Each structure stands twice: as structure tokens, then as C-alpha cells.
């Protein structure tokens, strides 16, 4: 509990530093939110716009204003999508991105854990090498390769699945698979090596010696410890899935928040960028915390340290 408290206490100062870095970094980039296609007609209008969003003030003052808003739960207004607040846009897109991320998480775990488990049991056989090669292959085809290939084959050529958008359950299949394959391979590799390591340990011998069935040994005793590396990877995995969805949302035109991360950074939509960076940081920090706690529960050796 003490540990949990310490970790929680670290969150606010960390988020403060992150928000400050993001806040300053986006403003260091040349060009403003009102150049390019949204160039106002006259310098007066531009000045009025800047004043309206308080962009004519010194950065330190703006940051204090931003923090004051944050306390009230206000991330500010988007500069590109006028009449929308950052919180609005996030509230609309986040459920979609989270759904995609969780589906892909389930996909990679559901495929990776059994594959790795199976691969570890068939040591030295062609089936082991088959599993090893397949998982390695999966790690070599990132989502932006799997995605277009799947679209080309399953959507355009054979019209099994829709090409894009996010409407029916059928629309969900291709994005989930494209995002998940790479990570399924990674999970399978971790699982396989964890299982091989675990089967070498003495408590497995003990379990066998006392006459447990092989199924019980593998499922009840070995699996629990062998899955620890996968669990400790699942925090970074979720983070990678969330950032990986930048590409997938772009490719399948899914209305999530991943698309906004890149676009708002390019169009210098300052409040949007800062809000999203903060959001990703919070998600990541909380996820990592949960993973660490799960890790402590699973491995008795960590617990007693």
C-alpha cells in the first residue's frame, strides 16, 4: 500500500513537467495556428484572434492560465476546429480509440499466449520451429504493412470486409487484426521464452514428482509464472497499441483521437496537442501502475522482496 501511495504521489508533479514540456515545445515550432489555409484576411483580424485565445501573452502567463483552466477540468478550445473544446473532441474520439486498442489487445493476447505456450511445449520439433518462425515473421510486419495488404486482399479484391470507416462489427475486424498481428507475435515470443524458463525450475519437478497430471502442472503451476513477462509487457503494449492506432485510424478513416495527434501537431493547434500529450501520459502512467500491481500479485518472488 505504501508502494502504491508513493507511485500515486509521483503522478501530479510528473504530469506537470510533461504538460510544461509539451506546452513550450509546440510554441517553439515556427508558424502559428492561423497561417496556411486558415490565414485571416487582415493583420487586424489575426491580432484579434490571437488576443481572443490569449496567444499574444508571454508563454509563462499562458501556461498559468492553462493550469488554472485545468483545475476546472477545462483543456481549452481547439484552434483548428473552432467552436469545439479539446475536451469535446477527446470525449468523442477516445471511446473509439480505446475500443480499437482494447480489441487489438485482446487479439494479441488471445493469439499470442496460446501460440507461445504451444511453441514451448513442442521443443526441438518442426512444430516448434514453425511457431518460432511465424511469430518472428509477425514481428517483422508492422501494422502499416498488414493494414494495406489486408485491405487490398480482403476488402478490395474479395470484398469480404468493408474498406474503411467504423460502423458495424464487420468494420472492426480489419483494423483490429492489422493493429494486433505485430503485437501477437511479440506476446507469443515472450510467452514462449517465459514458458521455457519456467519449465526448467525446480517447483515444476516437485509438482510432477508428487504425481500431478501434466495438464495440472502446465496450466495450474507453470502458466502462472510463465505469463509474468507477458504481464509486465502489457503496459508498454497498451501504450504501443494506442500510439500504433495513429496509423490505423489514418488508414481506415476511423474517427478516433490518434488522427488528431498528428494533424493537430502539424497545424499547430496548441491546446489540442497539449491536451492529447497529457491524455496519453495519464493513460500510460495509470496503465503502468496497474501492470506493476498485477505483476506483484502474480509472482510470489517479487512480492516478498
Amino acid at each position, binding site marked *: 500500500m505504501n508502494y502504491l501511495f508513493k507511485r500515486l504521489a509521483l503522478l501530479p508533479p510528473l504530469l506537470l513537467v510533461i504538460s510544461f514540456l509539451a506546452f513550450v*515545445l509546440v510554441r517553439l515550432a515556427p508558424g502559428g495556428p492561423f497561417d496556411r489555409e486558415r490565414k485571416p484576411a487582415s493583420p487586424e483580424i489575426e491580432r484579434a484572434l490571437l488576443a481572443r485565445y490569449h496567444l499574444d501573452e508571454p508563454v509563462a502567463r499562458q501556461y498559468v492560465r492553462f493550469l488554472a483552466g485545468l483545475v476546472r477540468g477545462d483543456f481549452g478550445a481547439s484552434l483548428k476546429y473552432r467552436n469545439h473544446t479539446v475536451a469535446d473532441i477527446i470525449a468523442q474520439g477516445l471511446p473509439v480509440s480505446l475500443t480499437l486498442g482494447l480489441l487489438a489487445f485482446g487479439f494479441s493476447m488471445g493469439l499470442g499466449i496460446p501460440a507461445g505456450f504451444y511453441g514451448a511445449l513442442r521443443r526441438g520439433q518442426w512444430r516448434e520451429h514453425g511457431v518460432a518462425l511465424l511469430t518472428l*515473421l509477425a514481428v517483422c510486419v508492422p501494422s502499416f504493412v498488414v493494414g*494495406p495488404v489486408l485491405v487490398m486482399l480482403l476488402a478490395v479484391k474479395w470484398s469480404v470486409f468493408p*474498406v474503411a470507416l467504423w460502423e458495424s462489427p464487420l468494420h472492426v475486424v480489419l483494423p483490429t487484426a492489422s493493429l494486433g498481428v505485430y503485437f501477437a507475435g511479440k506476446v507469443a515470443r515472450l510467452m514462449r521464452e517465459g514458458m521455457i524458463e519456467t519449465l526448467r525450475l525446480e517447483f515444476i519437478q516437485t509438482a510432477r514428482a508428487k504425481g500431478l497430471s501434466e495438464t495440472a502442472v502446465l496450466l495450474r503451476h507453470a502458466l502462472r509464472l510463465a505469463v509474468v513477462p507477458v504481464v509486465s509487457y502489457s503496459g508498454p503494449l497498451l501504450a504501443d497499441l494506442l500510439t500504433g492506432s495513429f*496509423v490505423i485510424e489514418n488508414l481506415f478513416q476511423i474517427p478516433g483521437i490518434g488522427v488528431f*495527434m*498528428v494533424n493537430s501537431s*502539424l497545424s499547430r493547434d496548441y491546446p489540442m496537442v497539449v491536451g492529447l500529450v497529457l491524455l496519453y501520459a495519464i493513460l500510460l502512467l495509470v496503465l503502468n501502475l496497474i501492470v506493476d500491481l498485477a505483476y506483484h500479485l502474480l509472482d510470489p518472488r517479487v512480492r516478498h522482496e
Partner: protein
Amino acid sequence: MSDANVQSPTARAWQRFKRNRAGWCSAWFLAGFVLLVALWPAFAPYPPDAISDAQFHPPSAAHWFGTDVHGRDLLTRVFYGARISLLVGGVGAGVSLVIGVLWGAVAGYVGGRLDGLMMRIVDVLYALPSIVFVIVLLTALNGILDRFQARGWSGETARGVQLLGLFVGLGAISWLTMARIVRGEVLSLRTRPFVEASRALGAGHARILWLHILPNVVGIVIVYLALTVPAVVLYESFLSYLGLGIQPPQASLGSLIAEGASQINPIRIYWWIIAFPAATLALTLLALNFLGDALRDALDPRSALDQSPVR
């Protein structure tokens, strides 16, 4: 036992590496591929950005990989792209090597409160959405470069700075695991008798680090370097796919795949503009991963656990 029969650890590792067929083949494949893309400009039949009327030609004797939307020869584009991807992967991993080894060695060797502080920083950085920061950084850099180009910088210089930004940005988010591993090794080496002996003989810290400690971490550093290269190549492709990395008319494997993906339409399938860059990327990553695994088995037989070098 005579000296002739005693193998040095290096020789033993080399023996183990040579016995690993997949790793050995990958090493040769990569060496050949690097040589090919490095020398390609010398005997390329087409310049990389020669636009022609032959748009979307499927693979043929004249264009082995076909041509793209502007009638450019895809084989040449892919090889030029692979050149950039491999360069970014190599140099980016090199940057992560320098930062990671320095950070880890100092933390492990000095120990105490500094060690605690430096490792907490690593922990914190682990938990950050680093790629998000790289995206913000690269868009800023691209904006700055556009401005300088408008003021009369040559495209050549701007492209150079752009590459440099990619190297540093990707290296800067890839050094964390390296630092952790090096620190762990140094921490245990520091208390070993031969280091104490050297200290008793009056050797300075720099001498001990350079002569006694660093040579002993080389093996594990090589292993993680080899696993970092494919990770950086992947990051670069990811960024270039999003249009943040390499800017046109230059290409990397990631931006070529993006170009291919943007040409998907229900009327005609130009499979080659996506299949060849994608296959090249997959094959390169496969060989790099095989090589990394083989090096790990050879140099660090103890650790069987796969630790991703980049968070």
C-alpha cells in the same frame, strides 16, 4: 592444460555464432544488402526521381519492381529507401548506444544517490509517451527547415539536418533499456576482485572504467545494439508513414509503403507499389532480428528472456 586448448570467451562466442545457421545466413544477407544499396547509385539504370510517362507499369524486364504514380522506377526507389532506412536504423541505434552506455556506466559506477536519481529518471522516461514527443519535435523541426529553405538554404542542407533530427530523436527515445542493462552489469563488475586490485594499485576512475569495466560489458552491449537497430528502423518507417520522417522527393521504406497504401482503390489494384517496399522492410527486419537473436545466444547465453530494446 596447454594454452593452445584454452579458448578465449570471444572465440567461444564466435564458434557458437557460426553454428547458428539462421544468424549466419542473416549476417551474410545483411552484408550483401547493405553493399548493394550502398553501391546502387553507381549502376542504377534510372535516377531515383526520374519522372516518366510510364505510370503504374506492372513489373517487367525494364522495371523489375514496376513503376509508381509518377512513372518512377520502383526498384531504384526501394533501394534508395532501404538506404535511408538502414542509415537511420544504424546511426539512431548508435546514438542510443552512446547515451545508454554513458548513462548506465556512470550510474552503476558512481552508485549511491546519483545512481538512484539517474535510474528514477530512466523509470520516468519509460512511462512517457515518447513517440508523441518525437512527433511534436519532428513537426517543429520540419517547420524550422521550411523556413530556412525559404530563406535560401539548399535542399541538400535541409535534408541533412532533417536526417540528423531523425537520428537524434530516435536515438533519444531508444537508450533506456541499454542504460538499465549496462548499469546492472557495471554495478556487479565494480565489486569484483580484479577491479579492487586495480584500485589498490592506484588506478584512477577513468582508467578502471575504460580498461576493466567497459571491455566486460561489450558483449551484452552488442546484443542490445543488434536488437535496437530493427526497432529504430521500425520507428523511422512508422514516422515516415505518417509523413513526419523523410520528406519527398526523398523516400524511405515507410513513406514508400504509405504511397502504396494511398493508391488503393476499388478499380485497379497496383499491388506492386505496396508489395515490394513492404517485403523489403519485412525481410530486412527479419534478418536483423535473426542476427540479434543469434548474437544474444552466442554472447549472452544466460539470458533467454526477450526484452524489447525500445520500450
